[in-house]
C-alpha cells in the first residue's frame, strides 16, 4: 500500500534514506529515543511534510502528487494532542473530516469505551479520554470516506496513541488496533514509546535512532537487549523470551 524508495530529509531534522513498505492488515510500530525523528518520519508518511530525496508512494502514486482532499480518504493522521480550543461535543468531534453514518459513530464510541461520554464537551474530558476520541475520529474518517472500490481499509497513522492512557486502556486500545487492522485490512503505523506494547502487539517494528533506521523486522528480531541498551543508553533486563513470544523488558533498578 505505502512504499518508501530512499525517502530522506537532507536539511534538519535530517532523516537518512529509507526503503520499505507498509502493508494492509499489519500493525507497524515505530520506536526510538526522544528526538530520534519518529514524529518527523510519521509526518513524511502522512504527506504533511514532503521528502527532499527519494519518494514515498501510496497505491503506486507519489504522495506529493495526491490532492490533499483525495489523500484523506486513504489515510488518516492522529498527531500528538494539542490543547483543545473550543467545546466540541465528543460526537461532533468524531464526525469532523467525514460525514459518518451515525451507526458507525456509535460503534466506534463503543469500541473506544466512550459511549457514556458521547454528549460531553471535550473540554471536560481527561487527557486519556480525549486521546481516545481523537483516535476514534481518525478511524471514523478512514471507514466512512473509504471508496467502494477499495480492497483494504486505508492507512492509519498514530503519534504516541497511548501516551495519556492508563495500563488497562493501553491494552484495550492495542487490542482494538489489531482488531481494526485485521477486520478492515487497515494498515496501522504507530509511534510508540513503550517497548513492551510494541513487542506484544506490533507485527513489525522500525527502530529509529538519530535520524536513521537502526533496525527493522519482527519485534523479536529488532528488540534485542544489546541493541536497546546501546540505542537508549538504558540498562535493561529481559523478563520473558523463553516461550517463543516476544521479549518483555524491565529497567534494572
Amino acid at each position, binding site marked *: 500500500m505505502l512504499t518508501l524508495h530512499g525517502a530522506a530529509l537532507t536539511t534538519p531534522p535530517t532523516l537518512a534514506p529509507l526503503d520499505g513498505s507498509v502493508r494492509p492488515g499489519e500493525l507497524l510500530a515505530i520506536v526510538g529515543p526522544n528526538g530520534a525523528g519518529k514524529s518527523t518520519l510519521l509526518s513524511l508518511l*502522512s504527506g504533511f511534510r514532503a521528502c527532499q530525496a527519494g519518494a514515498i508512494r501510496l497505491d503506486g502514486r507519489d504522495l506529493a502528487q495526491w490532492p490533499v*482532499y483525495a489523500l484523506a480518504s486513504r489515510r488518516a*493522521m*492522529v498527531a500528538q494532542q494539542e490543547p483543545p480550543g*473550543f*467545546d*466540541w461535543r465528543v460526537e461532533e468531534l468524531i464526525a469532523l473530516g467525514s460525514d459518518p453514518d451515525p451507526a458507525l459513530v456509535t460503534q466506534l464510541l463503543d469500541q473506544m469505551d466512550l459511549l457514556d461520554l458521547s454528549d460531553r464537551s471535550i473540554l471536560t474530558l481527561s487527557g486519556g479520554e480525549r486521546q481516545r476520541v481523537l483516535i476514534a475520529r*481518525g478511524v471514523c*474518517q478512514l471507514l466512512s470516506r473509504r471508496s467502494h472500490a477499495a480492497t483494504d481499509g486505508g492507512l492509519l*497513522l498514530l503519534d504516541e496513541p497511548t501516551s495519556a492512557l492508563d495500563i488497562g486502556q493501553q491494552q484495550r486500545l492495542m487490542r482494538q488496533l489489531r482488531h481494526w487492522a485485521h477486520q478492515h485490512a487497515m494498515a496501522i503505523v504507530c509511534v510508540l514509546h513503550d517497548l513492551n506494547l510494541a513487542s506484544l502487539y506490533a507485527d513489525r517494528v522500525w527502530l529509529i535512532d538519530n535520524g536513521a533506521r537502526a533496525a527493522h523486522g519482527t519485534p523479536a528480531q529488532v528488540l534485542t537487549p544489546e541493541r536497546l541498551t546501546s540505542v537508549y543508553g538504558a540498562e535493561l533486563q529481559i523478563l520473558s523470551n523463553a516461550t517463543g513470544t516476544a521479549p518483555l523488558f524491565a529497567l534494572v533498578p
Partner: protein
Amino acid sequence: MMALLLRSRREPFHQRALGVLALLAALLALSLAWSASSGTFGLSPLTLISDQADALSVQVWWQLRLPRLLLGAAVGAMLAGSGAAMQGLFRNPLADPTLLGLASGAGLFVALWIVLFQGAGHGAGPVSLYGQFIAGFLGALSVCAVVFGLAQRQGGGSAAVMTLLLAGLAINTLAGAGGGILAFIASDEQLRQLSLWGMGTLTHSLWRTTLVALVLIPLALIGLLRSARELDLLQLGETTAHGAGLDAPRLKRRVVVATSLGVGLCVALTGVIGFLGLLVPHCLRLWLGPGHRLLLPASMLGGAILLVVADTLARTLAAPAEIPVGLLTSLLGGPYFLYLLMRRSRTC
C-alpha cells in the same frame, strides 16, 4: 419560540441550522423595522407602504435613513463574521479584529491617507473614498500578516495566546501614537475629517458609501462562509487537519484576505467599531456550539442585529445629539472581555 431556542445540538444539522438562521433573520428584520421607524424622520414600513407620509420625510428617509440601516447591517455582519473566522483561524476565542490591532492598523493607514496623500478639495470625491478604502485594506492586511506570522512562530498553547494579545496591544498603542502625530500635523480641515470619521459612527452614510459596502462586504462574507468546513477541520491541529484533507495554507490565505478586505473597508467607512467581533461569536458559540457551518452565518446575522440596534440607540438616546456607536459597543464589549479573561484564568 421557546422550543426553537432550546433546540439541542443533537438535532439533525440542516433542520437545526434552518431554524436558528430563520429566527435570527426574523430578529434582524424586526430590528431594521424598529430602527427605520424610530427617531427624527423615522417612518415605519407600514407608513411607507400606505403612502401616508409627506414627500419630504419620505425623501429624507430614502436618502439618509435607508443607506444608514443597510450600512449598519453590513458592517455589523462583517465585523462579527470576521471575529468568528479569526477565532477559528487562531483556534482561540479571544481573537478579534479590534483586540489584535487589525482595526486600528486599518485606521492608522486611513488617517495616513487623509493627512498625507489626500489632496485638498478632494474631501468628498470618489478618489478620496476609494483611497480610504484601499488604505484601510492595506493597513488591516499588514497587521494581519504580522500577527499571524507571530502566531505561527509560537505554535499553539497559552504562550501564543499571550503573544497575540500583547502584539495586539503593541499595535494598538503604535497606531494610537501614529494617529496622534497625524492629528498634530494635520490641517484644520483634515483634523475635522479625521475626528468625524475616527470615533466609529454610521452618521455619514450616504448611498455612495453604502453601495461600495453592499457590493464588497457580501463578497468577503461569502469568502468566509465557504471556509466554514475547513475552519472546523483546522481545530484538530494542523498536522491532523492535513491528514483529514485540509489545505491549511489556502484556508489561511482566504480567511486573512477576506477579513482584511472586510475589516479594512468597514474601518474606512465607519471608523473603529470595537468588540462586535468578540461579543457576538462568543455568545452564539455558547448557544450553538463551535461548528463554523452554523456559527459563521449566525454570527453575521447576530452582528447585523447588534449594530443596527446599537446604532438606533446611539441616534435616539441623547437626541438630538448622537453618541458615536463605536463608544457604545466598546462600553458593552470592554467589560465583557474582562469578564471572559477572568473566567478563563479561573478555569485554566
